[in-house]
């Protein structure tokens, strides 16, 4: 799959946004997309380019904002970067088209405090049911705790 073709097709699917790609090791292409376009972009990847394999969803706290990385794989690695605000982080679920995203979204949800709209069962995956404190991967938590 050629990156230029991909960017062009994405531009057709979501015309209000200018898609750009950058490369990070190891031979991974990162494309920044707005949260609203996530579903369309994933559809383009799956239907036009047969890139249906979602390796995982990484969530991290960048300080000023939260960041979700959707790692796809088809002949090469394609990562979609979605930036979310720290308060009220919401994004549409992918489980309707990719049932395998279920566990990944649950984990990001509990570790980072992101809500996945439409997720069929957003219980905790790894944390206990009675987890009261902040989501563990949020920066505020790290600043408070000091020694491990």
């Amino acid at each position, binding site marked *: 799959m050629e990156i230029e073709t991909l960017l062009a097709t994405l531009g057709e699917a979501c015309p209000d946004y200018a898609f750009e790609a950058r490369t*990070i*090791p*190891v*031979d*991974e292409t*990162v494309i920044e997309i707005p949260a609203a376009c996530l579903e369309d972009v994933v559809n383009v990847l799956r239907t036009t380019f047969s890139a*249906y*394999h*979602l*390796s*995982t969803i*990484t*969530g*991290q706290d960048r300080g000023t904002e939260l960041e979700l*990385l959707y*790692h796809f*794989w088809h*002949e*090469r*690695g394609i*990562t979609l970067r979605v930036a979310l605000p720290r308060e009220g982080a919401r994004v549409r679920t992918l489980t309707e088209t*990719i*049932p*395998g*995203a*279920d*566990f*990944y979204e649950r984990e990001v949800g509990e*570790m980072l405090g992101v809500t996945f709209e439409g997720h069929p069962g957003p219980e*905790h*995956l*790894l*944390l*206990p049911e009675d987890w009261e404190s902040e989501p*563990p*991967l949020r920066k505020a938590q*790290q600043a408070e705790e000091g020694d*491990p």
Partner: protein
Amino acid sequence: MTRVTIPVGPQHPLLKEPLSVRLTAEGERVLEAAMRLGYVHRGIERLVQERTYVQNLHLLERVCGICSHVHTTTYCQGVEALLELDVPPRGLALRTLMCELERIHSHLLWLGVLAENIGFSTIFMYSWRDREMALDIMEGLSGGRIAHAVNTIGGVRVDLDRGEMYAARRLLNELEKHVHDLLDVVEHESTLKVRTQGVGGASLEQVRRHCAVGPLARAAGLDRDLRRDAPYAAYDRLSFEVVTETGGDVWAATRVRVLEVFESLSLCRQILDDLPSGEIATRAPRRVPEGEVVSRAEAPRGEVVYYLRSDGSDKPARIKIRTPTLPALSLVREQLRDINIADVPAVISGIDLCIACADR
């Protein structure tokens, strides 16, 4: 008939690690399964942020006991990419050798566990006895049977001398003879076939939708192996076959894994016959420049993905680990629907669980 809930786990003779599966059954038929993870969750993704890159080698090796080397391999590859470090060929070859030995021992371990869970304890004893040979080679190389501590950032820490190479070749030849016997049993033993054929079939479509990887996916016909599709370490100069089957049932998965052991044995021999001379590691600086990297490798159970972000200090800012058991667990919830209770052990064992990997 009334519905009953049969708990499989967190403690159950079937499971080697704690996992909670609640089966809703009517008579001898399972209707559906609910799964709960997190019993071995150690918060490793959080812990790595407070340790230096070198200290994390020790921690990340202990994500899993069976595939410990491949975790450090993926991690080191990622950090080396950020450092733009070139690992010398001898180091890459030794790293690959350990990867393949680990694959052999993992598949033989799994075969024993599957056999024990369907009541065939004779094959459990045989395959674990044969596995000891692979462990002996790994111990000769690294000093450890399970936690090898072979990898370091920039290469490997231990080297092979002539005596160890000779001993390793001898053990590999002997192991191959035994694995031929095991393949014979898998292909011809009637009670094993009757318990595993047609059981837990996963279609290619299901595998795709759940993003399953590894021998489980290859048993359903998915032709993907990262050693061939995205070569890392020394795989670009080695030749091997990617084994696939059709049907996706437990018997197909068994066949794939046993045939993969033969491929791994061949790879080990190729590496030993053609081991480049020279250094085994390049010196790595303490601080890693800012950047992100996505590193992938083919663990015995499938694709393992590491996302690493560094902020210029000597501690990683974020490490995200995704192990192959997690999508397999997603797939098995569907495979456990509408099957016989007596098939549950075969199906659950067939996906090659590694809960410590999935929970981190």
